[in-house]
């Protein structure tokens, strides 16, 4: 079997095992309400994980996504407060546009300034957060200032299967993953994204403009973080200066758990979706599990990241050894 298929199967089994485990621990866990709770929560993370995956595939990392979510959520809410009649689609596109603009700052510095992405995005993580504090003047966006369609969006149902409600926000988030998944497997340009992450020197030798590829992946990452910011605004309605804080950790966890190589060059959107679901299921379930304090949630995310990367490294070393033995 292809190693990638094997990994997806293993992830699916892990997800199933997690759900079964918590169903024995938490009363009323296997319910339609819990399904809605987890899927709508994962919907906010998913575009962010997709964004992170694209950047990580190019052998970079985007730590600023959480701050971009915060800035986009606040600015979009602020603009809606002044122009409540903007059409919903335009609002969504605008949120993604703001995100893309912020991503472009990262992109320029990484691709052409040749500054390591971990430093650039750590910088923008802090800078954007401070910008938000200054911009908001410590005020809060409240549902009262938002148009009704947006406030009602999280409760809007797209369709139901087996008595489980699938929300519009969930469909939107899944759509972003599906579209990006199709792009990554079908577009010729996407091959260059994988190529740059797989072997940057070879990419230059093969006549690929690596700087351009990296730049656009950061722009895309920003745009998807913008979508996440829009969904964040819809879900919570009340936006403070700490909005989206710490979400970069969740996005990195979802991506590495989902099997995207931290060394770049490989990863699939199916893996990212399951990884996101797994991370968010654990995160949401822990808050209801009486045995463990919810302050351990971050620790668990950290553990998941380390475990996923360790398993990955050990496995690829073993596979490498096997391959050498064969020849």
């Amino acid at each position, binding site marked *: 079997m292809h190693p990638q298929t094997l990994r997806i199967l293993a992830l699916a089994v892990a997800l199933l095992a997690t759900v079964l485990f918590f169903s024995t621990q938490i009363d009323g866990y296997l319910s339609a309400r819990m399904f809605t709770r987890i899927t709508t929560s994962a919907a906010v993370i998913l575009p962010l994980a997709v964004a992170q995956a694209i950047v990580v595939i190019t052998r970079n990392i985007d730590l600023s996504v959480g701050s971009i979510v915060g800035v986009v959520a606040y600015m979009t809410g602020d603009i809606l407060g002044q122009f409540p009649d903007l059409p919903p689609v335009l609002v969504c596109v605008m949120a993604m546009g703001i995100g893309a603009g912020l991503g472009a700052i990262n992109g320029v510095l990484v691709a052409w300034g040749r500054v390591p992405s971990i430093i650039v995005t750590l910088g923008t993580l802090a800078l954007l957060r401070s910008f938000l504090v200054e911009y908001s003047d410590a005020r809060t966006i409240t549902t009262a200032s938002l148009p009704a369609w947006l406030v009602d969006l999280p409760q809007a149902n797209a369709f139901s299967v087996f008595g489980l409600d699938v929300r519009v926000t969930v469909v939107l988030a899944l759509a972003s993953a599906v579209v990006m998944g199709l792009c990554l497997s079908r577009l010729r340009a996407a091959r260059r994204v994988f190529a740059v992450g797989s072997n940057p020197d*070879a*990419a230059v030798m093969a006549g*690929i*403009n690596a700087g351009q590829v990296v730049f656009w992946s950061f722009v895309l990452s920003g745009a998807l973080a913008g979508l996440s910011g829009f969904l964040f605004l819809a879900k919570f309605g009340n936006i403070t200066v700490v909005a989206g804080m710490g979400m970069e950790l969740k996005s990195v966890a979802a991506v590495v758990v989902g099997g995207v190589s931290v060394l770049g*060059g490989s990863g699939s959107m199916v893996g990212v979706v399951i990884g996101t679901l797994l991370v968010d299921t654990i995160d949401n379930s822990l808050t209801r599990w009486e045995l463990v304090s919810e302050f351990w949630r971050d620790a668990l995310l950290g553990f998941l990241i380390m475990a996923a990367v360790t398993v990955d490294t050990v496995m690829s070393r073993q596979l*490498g050894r096997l391959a050498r033995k064969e020849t």
Partner: protein
Amino acid sequence: MTVLSLQHVSKSFAATAALKDMSLAIEPGEIHAIVGENGAGKSTLIKIMTGVHQPDRGDILVGGAPVVLRGTQDAQSHGIAAIYQEPMVFPDLDVAENIFISNRNEGAVMNWRRMYAQADQIVAQLGVKLDVRRAASGLTLAEQQTVEIARALSLNVKVLIMDEPTASLSAHEVARLLTIARALKAQGVSVIYISHRLDEIFQIADRVTVIRDGSHISTRPIAEVTPDGLVHDMVGRAIDSFAVKTEASPHGAPVLELQGLGRAGVFRGIHATVHAGEVLCFAGLVGARRTDVALAVFGIAPATEGTIRIDGAPVTIRTPAEAMGHQIAYVSEDRRKMGLAMSLPIFANISLASLRKLMGLLGLIDRKAELAMAETYRKQLAIKAADTGVEVGKLSGGNQQKVMLAKWLETKPRILIFDEPTRGIDVGAKAEVHNIIRTLAGQGVAVIVISSDLPEVLALADRVLVMREGTQAGILPIAEATQERVIGLAAGHDIKGAA
């Protein structure tokens, strides 16, 4: 009608002229070999032809029309591509994706089935068997090269440059690569074949060009060339800056003996003895694995076969610390990476390998003794710096070399290995380093010098050990070592009794 030609191309880096008035014409469908010594300008020539560097003067003509090549992509669009000794593949992509990664003329959407079919077709054209759907990560070096050649074919190249393509291949793989080169030729692709291996060149080339010191020396049909003549063209340089040593200096008892020394997959069968007061030089072309022998003796990458004897007794050396215990010192080729702490002052670098000696009360460093020691070396080796507190990174290359030497001299070595001791330093400093090496030998130290600079070898050595592709090609007493003999051995062709 030439497919690619260079006309009077010159290229300099800083003050060094890498190419001087170079002219070269490649005919369609020919295999054109280019040979030259280390530093003859081959790499620069390739980089000019692939658009990595732009010439300072002169023209590049493709199909008779002058062009400017602004980069690899630009060169590719003019039908020129190169493959290198170390192939450049994408381990996470499959073979077919690797082949078509540079292809820009296809649509925006991938047609996987068609891509695999075309990849199969190109691989078949090359006459090799390769599953185009498998990931590139497990491919052998030879298979990775095949992928690169296939990539070039997919771009419809007219000229394919192969830079030392067989340097890391087994005999069987070499034969297959030569077959591929002939297949390319049969399809009208011109191959520029750069190799140190004269036997391959005589097997495959239609014409051969010799370059030396950045200049074009000769281009002749292979039928009109003999191996002797080729070697003669490669070295035919007058030695001016250094006197050639004609006679071995007197020396004492054997100190270091290497008996069948080897390291699996790297080098093997090295037999040599270095006596007290003797200078043994390791000569060979780049990639002959000379440094690996030094790394084995010094315990950085220990030997896996053979015996090392010191004063006649067999020893095992697994780590640099053990080597230093046997009073072996290794002055590395790479000053920056393995030799010096650039941000530390001179005295701290000199004392680094002998800190134990300077340890005083409570294990603290005796700073006064440390400075005194450094000062002695500053005077003795004429290190040009105001005092020993100057950061090593601020010194010139030659002075850095002296600091590194001082560090190892303080360990009082009986066996001293120099790896490219004068690379990248100016002529004056070079002569000083040579004098220091001679003085050390005069004091009874057994010296090994690894050098790619042939005049340097002939000026320093009592004996010359020539390596070729990880094996010992020969060992010559200085009286028998001529440039032709050494280069001939290094390239796999022994010229006996030639002038």
